[in-house]
C-alpha cells in the first residue's frame, strides 16, 4: 500500500478523533480502532467516532461510506484497503 496514503489516513484519524494518548503508544496500522468489548487491544473508539470517521473520509476523499460498511473500517490498513477497493488510493 502507498505509504503516503497510509500516512494521510493515520494522521487524520489521530487529529480528527478523540484518541487517548496512552492508547497511541502501541498504535500500528493493524491496531483495531474501535472498542470491541473484549480483550483484544484497541483504541477504544465508539459509535460517534465511527460517524466522525465516515465524515472525515467524505471530507478527505469525497467518498460516502454506506452505513452497512462502517464495520469494515476497523484499522488504518482496513480503511486503506476499503478505499482502495473503491478506487481511492492517494
Amino acid at each position, binding site marked *: 500500500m502507498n505509504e503516503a496514503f497510509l500516512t494521510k489516513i493515520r494522521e487524520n484519524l489521530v487529529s480528527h478523533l478523540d484518541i487517548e494518548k496512552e492508547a497511541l503508544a502501541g498504535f500500528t496500522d493493524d491496531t483495531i480502532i474501535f472498542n470491541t468489548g473484549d480483550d483484544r487491544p484497541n483504541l477504544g473508539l465508539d459509535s460517534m467516532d465511527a*460517524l466522525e470517521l465516515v465524515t472525515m473520509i467524505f471530507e478527505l476523499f469525497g467518498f460516502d*461510506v454506506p452505513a452497512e460498511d462502517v464495520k469494515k473500517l476497523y484499522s488504518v490498513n482496513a480503511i486503506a484497503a476499503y478505499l482502495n477497493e473503491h478506487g481511492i488510493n492517494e
Partner: protein
Amino acid sequence: MITIKECGTEQYREHFGSYRTTFTDRCAMSAEQSGRIMLAYLDGEAAGYLLSSNAHDLEFMSYVFTLPELRGKGVMQTLIREAAKTADGQFGTAFSDGHEFAPALIHTLEKLGFEQCGSKYMFRCDGDDLWDRWDAFMEKKGRKSCETLRRQGYSTVTLAEASEELLEQYRQTPYSEYANPLNHQHLILPGAEITKDVSVMCTLNGRLAAYVFAYMPDRYSAIFKTLSSSAALQGGAAILLPLCESFAKVRGRGCTQFVFSMDGVGDHANSFRNKVLSNVISKTSKRLSYIYHKKEAAI
C-alpha cells in the same frame, strides 16, 4: 388509628390544597381516570394520600404524601400496604434516588416486601444556557454528523406522521432487538403519554433504525422516555439523527428544560451519553423501580 378510603379529586383538593403542585394535580387527574386516589385518616383527620394509575397489567404509584406535622406515625406505610394488598395485579412505583424522602421510601417498600426491579440513570437538562450548549455541540460536531447520516440514507419522520407500515414494524419488533426499550415498569409518569409530533422515528432503507419518544406535559418541559436503536445497526450512532430532530421540535415549542433516562449498561449507550448528551446534562440521578408481587410477599 389510621383508616384508608378511596375518593375522588375533590377530597384530594379539599384536604391538601396548600400542598398541591402541577405535578400532583396531573397525577391526581390520571389517578381519577385510570387508577385510584386513596386518602389516609389519622384519628379521623385527613393525614395523607396515595395516587396510582394503571398501565398495562401494572398499577403504578405515582405519588404518596403525608402532611409534614403527621410524619413518622405510619401513614405512608399504611397507605402503600393497603394499595399493594388491594391492587388487582402487580403494584409498583419508581422514584429518584436523589429525592429527600427516597431513603425513607426505600425502607418502607422493602419492609413491605417490595423488590427493586430496575434502576435507570435520570438526567436533568436545564439552565439559561441549555440551548446554547447544544448549539455549540451541533456547530462543532452534530450538524456534520447528521449530514453524514442523511447521506448514508437515514431519514426521519415524526410519530404523528409515521406510516402504518412503520408503526407495525415498531409494534412487531421484539424488545430484545432494541437497546433501552420503553418498559412499562420504568414509566416516569403515570400512563404511557407520548407527544407524537415531537417524537421521531429514524429509518434506513424503509426499516426502523432508531427512535426517540418524548412527552411534553407542558410547553416548557419535555420527558424523553426512550432513546432506542436497532441492535443490528448499533455502532453507527443513528440515534443522533432522531434525537437532534426531536430536540429541535421541543425547542421550537418553547421547551426550556427536559429529562431523559438511560439504562446505561451498554458501551454504546455510555459513550453516546458522554459524547453527546453530556453537553446538555445539568444533573444526574438514578430512577429506582420497585415492584410488589402479591402472592410471594408477606405483607
